[in-house]
């Protein structure tokens, strides 16, 4: 009845004397019996949950909340970051600049939406499809699963360097693939019209496995008897996928999409290493634009305003996705 099992070797020294009998009386009021000491140590013991959790919370508050407040403050100033020249108060001027047609900002919004929207759509569709394909017993399932984790786990900088060269218009292997497949010559990352589709392909390669593995975990937990019932009722495989599988795993899919959305908007390493936002600003996402404004041009105040906007973009996206989850789950 204790379910102690083999894993509880350390507890063995308690000798289990009459614990079963006393358990019933201690459960309703565990605090009352917590007197392992008096005074301070007793007080500590009774408020122990705060001692467990506060160090982490205080630390994160210090390194997170402080920067957020600082960023909000700094977004009201114009400052080059130089210690000699103090920040100059501009009020909401930075925000006015952001929204009154800064071409860099408009471009960044467009690039971010394009990149995130299309790659998310492909990744979710492909990921759910592949999960459906792999949701069965087959030889080497464990190996396949491990191999599929690699794109997700691999060092982004290294992967981006490899993809960058695979996309090389004169000697990259993709250029050769295109030639073998008799496709028109592509300039991949080097051309403003193909750079985002090329980055999307990279992103899809890297993250589809994640969506797939999450969805697969959801599919495995579905009860088998519904499908048997559907089969008896004459439902085709296609029908049972659309009418049964999809509605049942929708919460999992939406959760995976939210997760991917958060990371997709944050994508930095891959784009920075493979294109640095180029050619020109053709692949400059909001994230890279902020980076450039802050660390290239040292417009710290303006970058802070952009960060606040970026934060609300992410928040809005998540709220939208969360309402999808609530509405349809």
């Amino acid at each position: 009845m204790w379910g102690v099992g083999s894993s509880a070797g350390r507890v063995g020294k308690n000798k289990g004397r009459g614990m079963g009998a006393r358990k019933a009386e201690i459960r309703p009021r565990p605090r009352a019996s917590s007197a392992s000491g008096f005074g301070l140590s007793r007080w500590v013991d009774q408020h122990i949950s705060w001692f467990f959790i506060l160090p982490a919370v205080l630390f994160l508050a210090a390194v997170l909340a402080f920067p957020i407040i600082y960023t909000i403050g700094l977004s009201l100033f114009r400052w080059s970051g130089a210690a000699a020249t103090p920040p100059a108060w501009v009020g909401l001027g930075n925000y006015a600049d952001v929204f009154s047609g800064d071409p860099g900002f408009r471009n960044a919004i467009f690039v971010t939406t394009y990149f995130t929207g299309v790659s998310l759509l492909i990744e979710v569709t492909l990921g759910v499809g592949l999960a459906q394909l792999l949701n069965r017993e087959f030889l080497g399932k464990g190996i396949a699963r491990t191999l599929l984790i690699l794109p997700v786990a691999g060092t982004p900088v290294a992967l981006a360097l490899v993809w960058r060269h695979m996309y090389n218009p004169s000697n990259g292997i993709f250029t050769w693939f295109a030639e073998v497949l008799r496709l028109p010559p592509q300039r991949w990352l080097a051309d403003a019209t193909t750079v985002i589709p090329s980055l999307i392909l990279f992103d899809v390669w890297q993250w589809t496995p994640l969506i797939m593995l999450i969805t697969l975990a959801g599919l495995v937990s579905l009860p088998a008897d519904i499908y048997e019932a559907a089969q008896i009722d004459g439902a085709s495989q296609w029908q049972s996928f659309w009418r049964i599988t999809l509605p049942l795993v929708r919460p999992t899919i939406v959760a995976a999409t939210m997760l991917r959305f958060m990371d997709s908007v944050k994508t930095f390493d891959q784009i920075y290493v493979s294109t640095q936002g180029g050619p020109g600003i053709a692949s400059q996402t909001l994230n890279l634009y902020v980076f450039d404004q802050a660390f290239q041009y040292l417009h710290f105040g303006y970058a802070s305003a952009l960060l606040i906007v970026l934060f609300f973009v992410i928040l809005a996206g998540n709220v939208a996705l969360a309402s999808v989850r609530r509405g349809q789950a």
Partner: protein
Amino acid sequence: MIRESGGTRRAGISRQILFYCALVLVLVVFIFPFFWMAFNSFKTHEKILEYPPAFVFAPTLDNFKNVLWQSNIVQYTGNSVLIAFGSLAVGMVLGLPAAYGIARYGHRTLALGILVCRMIPGISFLVPWFIVFRALGLLDTYTGLVIAHLVITVPLITWIMIGFFEEVPVELEEAARIDGCSRAGVFLRIALPLVRPGLVSAGILALIFTWNSFLFPLILAGIKTKTLPVLVYSFMTFDYLDLGGVYAASTLVTLPVIVMVLIVQRQFIRGLTLGGVKG
């Protein structure tokens, strides 16, 4: 699967073949860039530039030798290891009690607060951090970089470990309490030893994330504390001279990650879905 007349069985076999073909195709697509990375790291610079790409060539170890002897890779690997393990250790000290506190005593709001860290792009910390770190003299120091990476490891460890602590039977802890063990003692002597498997996966995940991290060290590290991904990135500057070096360095930085993935496997996905900030 249920019916097995002759015709459906033959159809079943051809479907099996079709399935394995599709499976192999999928795996080839997702593994190819890794293969290509390792493959090209054994080619000379000239061989890599060949078009159409060379599939047959005399492999050479020169790229690895050059990377190992002619760059500061050894020093920067040391930096990466130091920062990864430093932020792992502090992350455990902060994250484990927090996870236990959340699993046993609630505090769900705080748990969500910790999760919010996942939503915020790394760049949003960087501007204020950069300014404050500069004022405090923390730029290009191990302390500064460990602090920065704690933003990744603390939420990650906390969120993975909540699940593991919840699986520890409460009865065990109650038994220890009756025997006079303090609540802190219960955590240290009962719960912690029982979640050891979870500790391994959480730890390795934290190491992978810190190891892969690029944006934080790109800004906060300097000549002394530069990490491996930043070094690999700097190889790109002369990739028209030494593509072999680029490929060899990429391979070297990726290898430990592959080893770590082989150790954690499924827990990796669990970790990714529960917490952690990346870049």
